[in-house]
């Protein structure tokens, strides 16, 4: 996920849809959530040649070890 700032999110959003000003706050909130999900995925990616280590997966609802 390469969109790390509000400005980047807004710029990308305006590329793909005719966003109104009212659309921007909910979009930013949602994309921040998506970014957290992507980070969670990245944290599990193994070294080349290795498999995902399920013992490193979380044990609770928030994704903590």
């Amino acid at each position, binding site marked *: 996920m390469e969109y790390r700032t509000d400005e980047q999110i807004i710029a990308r959003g305006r590329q793909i849809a005719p966003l109104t000003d009212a*659309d921007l706050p909910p979009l930013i909130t949602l994309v921040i959530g998506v970014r957290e999900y992507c980070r969670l995925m990245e944290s599990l990616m193994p070294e080349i040649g290795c498999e995902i280590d399920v013992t490193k997966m979380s044990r609770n609802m928030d994704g903590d070890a």
Partner: protein
Amino acid sequence: MVTNPHMLSLSEQARLISEGSLTSVELVQAHLDQISKLNPQLNSLIAVDPEGALQQAVEIDTARAKGEKLGPLAGVTLGVKDAVPVKGIPWTINSRLFEDRVPEEDAPVIARLKKSGAIVIGKANLNEFFSKPTESDLNPPPWNPWNPERMSVGSSSGSGAALTARMASGTIGVDGGGSVRLPAGAHNLYGIKPTHGLVSRIGVGRSEHSEICPLGLTALDTAMMLEAMVGHEPSDDLSWAGEIPEYTANIEADVSGWRIGVPHGFIDSAPNEPEVMEGFETFLSKLEELGCELVDIDIQGMAEARAATFLILFSNSYQKHQKTVKQDWDKYGPQSRVNLLQGAFLSSTDLINAGDVGRAFKAYFSQLLQDQNLKAIATPTSPFATAERSRRRGEHSRGINACYTAPFNISGHPSISLPAGFGDAGIPVGTMLTGEMHDDLSLLQLSHSYDKATVWNTLSPSI
């Protein structure tokens, strides 16, 4: 003469019709009367086909009178989530974008249900494009018949509400992250998400991990509908071509000694409302009364699998709408159009990561069941007892309402929501069983045993 046939379960209605004690016309008319009486208040159905339904009922009654062999669902009625195409009935996905669309063909799963004798009486309300409900959707959101001042949980909200209000014998929904199991739980119903690939998804856009699912008043009703829905579709490359057991013929089972895993550690980490946990504990007690052995288990990866499910859903959604959001932005509701954009912020690496995590969780969960010799694991269906709470901005954007359901969409394991009592607002709470791939039968057997041992299916709302 059967009085109030619409109040009976689908299996009872089918039996009476096959015996000749009830005609399909009488049943369809009873459901139409119920729709006329309650739908203006509840918004459960957004299209009704009275002429078509009555015509099909006449044909079934005529066939029976001639002694022709009837299908197992002959003469009963279905409400179908308006995400699934049914020939000749508007197919809007509750969006102005498709306000005038009427399909010329049935989805394969609908064709199978009709071949079993079921009659589609109408299309059930839903959140526009499976998003959050708003008053600006093409049709306003449905209300929960158990408390008509409360919204129905979605996205198969109308399917839950219409069945609860006895507007149909059974209903069909689509579950991409919990969208059948959550409304089943919140309406005192059974709703099963079958093993991935058992039911062809052609017609609903082939989203990778969304399944077309039945909701029933009883576990047996749910099994009867699922049995009619499963089967290999050669035109669907994701469709399961292997053997499928008969669900209804085998639904009676002695479940004593069955080991059920309970992931207390994970469950305790969720923000469960007190009435949810009260219902869940009562459910566990009932399983013990049935002779099941409860096993405390440790489970990992539920949060990661939930995240992976949503990342792929977001990507699928944006991919489908990428052209129309540019051209027809104003035709979308303000909630769904913003939700649909989330997938546009993902990279190909993000998606491949999510797919890898999903596959790893799938293998891990099957191994967990095997290692511990478990028939299923038990969890609540949702941490929340009302739709309003689950839709609070922070909760919804983090997907907490789906913390129990969504992991098993990407994994593909079968998962069923069962009734478990009522919360303070009068809204039902659900509980969930999830089992091994292609062992949907065990979930149905266990649910049927529980159903027979509880009073939930005898209750109906006082509307």
